[in-house]
């Protein structure tokens, strides 16, 4: 049975870099992977980047799958699950999407899946600014997810990561926190284990 895995997070949090890492690792493990990538603008860049790394992606552009393109997401999920039959579908929403809304759309898509997992990526380098300047939006982006991954840990000192953990816990005390550097590959295996996709 199929697993759906949403990799959410604000603009520039490293979603595409993580998706490429996960896609390559899962491919190496013999899993059949499909990637749905969504961009808010009329022109997509991430789909081209993903394909440049030898991975297949379907690109949904010109809107957000958690609101204006919700029907397109459901339709795409139905077609991919029926025609391509992947082991896992990795979903990259726009950096402005709310993962809890995407989860609702997935649940009502009438697509059969074994598990639906969602990860919120938090950019360690910019977390404090997002927390201070977009607190309400940031809070909604990390709510209703299964795991919160603090990304780009290679760019900040360890004491800063502790502070970021504190900020996140203030907004969402429940989900497990993992530390990763999607760019360097650090912590990605641990994240896959936490997701149960190894």
């Amino acid at each position: 049975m199929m697993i759906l895995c949403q990799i959410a997070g604000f603009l520039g949090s490293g979603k595409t870099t993580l998706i490429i890492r996960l896609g390559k690792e899962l491919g190496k493990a013999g899993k059949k992977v499909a990637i749905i990538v969504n961009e808010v603008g009329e022109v997509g860049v991430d789909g081209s980047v993903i394909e440049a790394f030898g991975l297949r992606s379907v690109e949904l552009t010109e809107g957000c799958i958690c609101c204006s393109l919700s029907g397109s997401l459901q339709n795409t999920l139905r077609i991919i699950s029926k025609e391509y039959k992947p082991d896992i579908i990795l979903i990259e929403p726009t950096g402005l999407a709310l993962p809890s809304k995407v989860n609702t759309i997935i649940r009502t898509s009438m697509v059969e899946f074994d598990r639906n997992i969602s990860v919120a990526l938090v950019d360690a380098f910019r977390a404090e600014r997002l927390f201070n300047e977009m607190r309400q939006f940031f809070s909604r982006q990390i709510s209703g997810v299964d795991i919160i991954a603090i990304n780009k840990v290679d760019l900040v000192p360890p004491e800063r990561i502790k502070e970021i953990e504190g900020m996140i816990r203030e907004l969402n005390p429940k989900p497990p926190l993992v530390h990763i550097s999607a760019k360097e590959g650090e912590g990605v295996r641990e994240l896959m284990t936490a997701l149960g996709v190894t």
Partner: protein
Amino acid sequence: MGDEDTKELAEAGSFGLKVDFESRGDLKAQDLTKMMGNLLLEVADRITGKQPLIGHVKAFIKTPLGHIQLNLVDTELGLEIVQTIGDGPITSGSMNLMAAIVGTKDRKIEEAMRKALEPVALKLKLTIHEHDHDQTRNLDKLISLG
């Protein structure tokens, strides 16, 4: 899902362009990378000035010799560049440009991007594609592999 639009909720604007190009003379990968990097920095500067960017400006440039990927998330961190083009002159290619920035409007990003393309147009022959409103790309390609 209600009427909530998350782009409006985040008070963000976005704009993207797909552009084909041909070189007007000898064009090396490093020249193209520098030119496109300057374009991204100029878009950010035109939108946010001295204020830090909240969002990102990115580009993917495809040529017969390889690709260049540029990403600007934070002006303090600078450009992130992945370049796979080897030696040899670049004669043509295509570029996808996209920006999504908080606290601005689509139109302002469009103006900034078109203005930032002007110096590039002096060095490259550009054909800007007005977008085709095809919101789902590559689905047929994926299922044909199933």
